């Protein structure tokens, strides 16, 4: 006769760890492989000089950092990144927010039609969008300039103009991300009880006052999410049209930090400098997010 053995207390303790870690393992493996390992490698690489070909990277200490921080190109890319971000905040946060408010609370006919129409560009790949806009922006044959000329307005060569290249590229990115942000914000907005808005309408509050004093605070959690995503994703998404359409030009007028890093790695093969720039970018964005959390979270209302 066999006696079934009760697992001992030690085994139970191990088993208690085993299940949760076992469940986490697949995700952790991918995170480690594709996020943490590259992060650590980048950090390490930023102290070396290496052209991706030579067998032995050369230790250079902080030289890469000093050179990057002293270079005009890096700071140009930095300011451009800010410029892109500001434009994207206007086009991809403020604009979809207001559009979603109008479509959820002020327009009641054809809502589904507008929603579908606005979301449509999001399903396209950014590379395709870039090619479409290359044609739209064509200085001679493009419809944008044809229209401007028809209205008697100046028709600049969008992608080769110092002044217009950043807004032009930002618009491409914005056009693609607008729909997604719109849907996310719309979901937040329709959750605001209609009674609250009706109560405000009885007080003669204008649509703007209702938006600013009631709808906006009640949806600020969603808005903060979209804000963070716009800042982070926005600066990365812009890379696609830069890389495809202008290569940072004319004369670096359209570079941003992500493109700068890409260029130093894959065009100039100065991986050490690129890694240093990547680490600095990481610190800048980390600081930005910290500030956002500190300053903006205070004003955010969460339902629970």
């Amino acid at each position, binding site marked *: 006769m066999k006696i079934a053995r009760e697992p001992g207390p030690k085994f139970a303790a191990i088993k208690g760890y085993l299940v949760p870690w076992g469940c986490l393992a697949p995700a952790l493996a991918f995170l480690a492989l594709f996020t943490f390992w590259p992060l650590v490698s980048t950090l390490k690489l930023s102290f070396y000089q290496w052209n991706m070909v030579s067998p032995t990277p050369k230790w250079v200490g902080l030289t890469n950092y000093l050179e990057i921080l002293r270079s005009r190109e890096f700071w140009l890319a930095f300011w451009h990144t800010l410029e892109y971000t500001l434009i994207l905040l206007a086009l991809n946060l403020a604009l979809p927010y207001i559009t979603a408010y109008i479509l959820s609370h002020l327009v009641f006919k054809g809502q589904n039609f507008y929603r579908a129409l606005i979301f449509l560009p999001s399903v396209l790949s950014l590379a395709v969008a870039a090619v479409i806009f290359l044609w739209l922006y064509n200085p001679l044959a493009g419809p944008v300039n044809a229209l401007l000329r028809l209205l008697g307005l100046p028709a600049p060569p969008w992608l080769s103009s110092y002044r217009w290249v950043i807004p032009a590229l930002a618009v491409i990115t914005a056009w693609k991300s607008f729909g997604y942000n719109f849907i996310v914000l719309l979901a937040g907005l329709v959750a605001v009880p209609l009674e609250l808005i*009706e*109560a*405000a*309408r*009885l*007080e003669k*509050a204008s649509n703007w006052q209702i938006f600013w004093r*009631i709808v906006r605070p*009640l949806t600020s959690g969603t808005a903060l999410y979209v804000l963070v995503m716009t800042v982070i994703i926005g600066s990365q998404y812009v890379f696609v049209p830069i890389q495809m359409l202008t290569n940072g030009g004319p004369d670096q007028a359209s570079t941003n930090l992500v493109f700068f890093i890409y260029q130093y790695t894959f065009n100039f093969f100065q991986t050490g400098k690129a890694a240093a720039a990547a680490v600095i970018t990481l610190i800048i964005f980390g600081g930005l997010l910290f500030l956002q959390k500190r300053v903006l979270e205070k004003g955010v209302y969460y339902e629970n």
Partner: protein
Amino acid sequence: MPVIAGDIYFDKVRKEYGRVTALEQLDLRVAAGERLVLLGPSGCGKTTALRLVAGLERVTSGKLYLNGRLANNLEPGERDVAMVFQNYALYPHMTVWENIAFGLQVRRVAKEEIKARIKEALAILGLEGLEERRPRELSGGQRQRVALARAIVKQAPYFLLDEPLSNLDAQLRTQARTELVRLHRKLNSTMIYVTHDQVEAMTIGQRIAILAGGVLQQVDTPENIYNRPANTFVAKFIGNPPMNLLPGIVKGNQLFLGEGLKLIIPGNWSAWLLGKSQNRVIMGLRPEDVTLREEGVAEGEGLPVRITWRENCGKERLYYLAAGDKELTASFSEGRTEPRGGELWLTIDWDKVHFFAEGDGNSLGYPWNTRELSLKAYA
């Protein structure tokens, strides 16, 4: 803080939502300073009527006048209407103070004035000390009072309430009823109060307007609604347990209610009913207006009944009765001896019966006039 009230006049007002008719031709005048209750089952159009006054819905046809001014196309903000919503509609991200102040700030009332009005409202409603709380930190009763405070600081001539007590527990509700009436006496604005609860309607309303299926059934004082219901719907809707309605045929001075159920109609009623064009009627008997006897009565003096179920509700006892194929309810207050089972006789107080026409269910009136009725009621 009494206000100058205005009157409200619905002139053939109709409201449709697509193909659904929520209100069919409503004709109703609410006097300035009056407390009118809109009462009816859910879906009867009472909330629609209220929202039409507030301007949250637009009239499909007909005219709505506020203080003699045509209001069909006035924006909600231009109607000077204070409203308490069913779920209070307090702004969850604002404190009690901010909630009450919001409307006044939007209207650019002077800061000192806002402060004074809020202080007064908080005192009236006993909300002092809760100014900095947010709605979710308040109890149901407190939230309801904040919603009232927000409405009264507006000092509007119209005060609309949409089932404001439905989210409170029974005990608080009784208390809040009294508070609401007191509050209205202080304000003196024109109050429209929507409810599906007949007790609220009877206790709060100076007049009650009963709606069913988008049609106004009766508008009258609570006493008249109870004692002289205009039709079988009102008769059944008001009163708990509801009025017994027995269809029958009048032949001379006899009323046939079914197999072996015959009543002799006394002279005044008999003359009255003979004057009517139809002899098919519905007799209405309130459960509290009948008597159960153990000893037999003469033929035509009462109905033979059997008790099928008894309920003891404490202050009253309910008996469910079978009379032939008819079912009836009788109720007696505590203190009366419990009737035995088996065959009993139900007798009627003919001063308290109601007759309705079969078909449209409208009241056939009473052989005495209203004045006599009220004298009887207070005798």
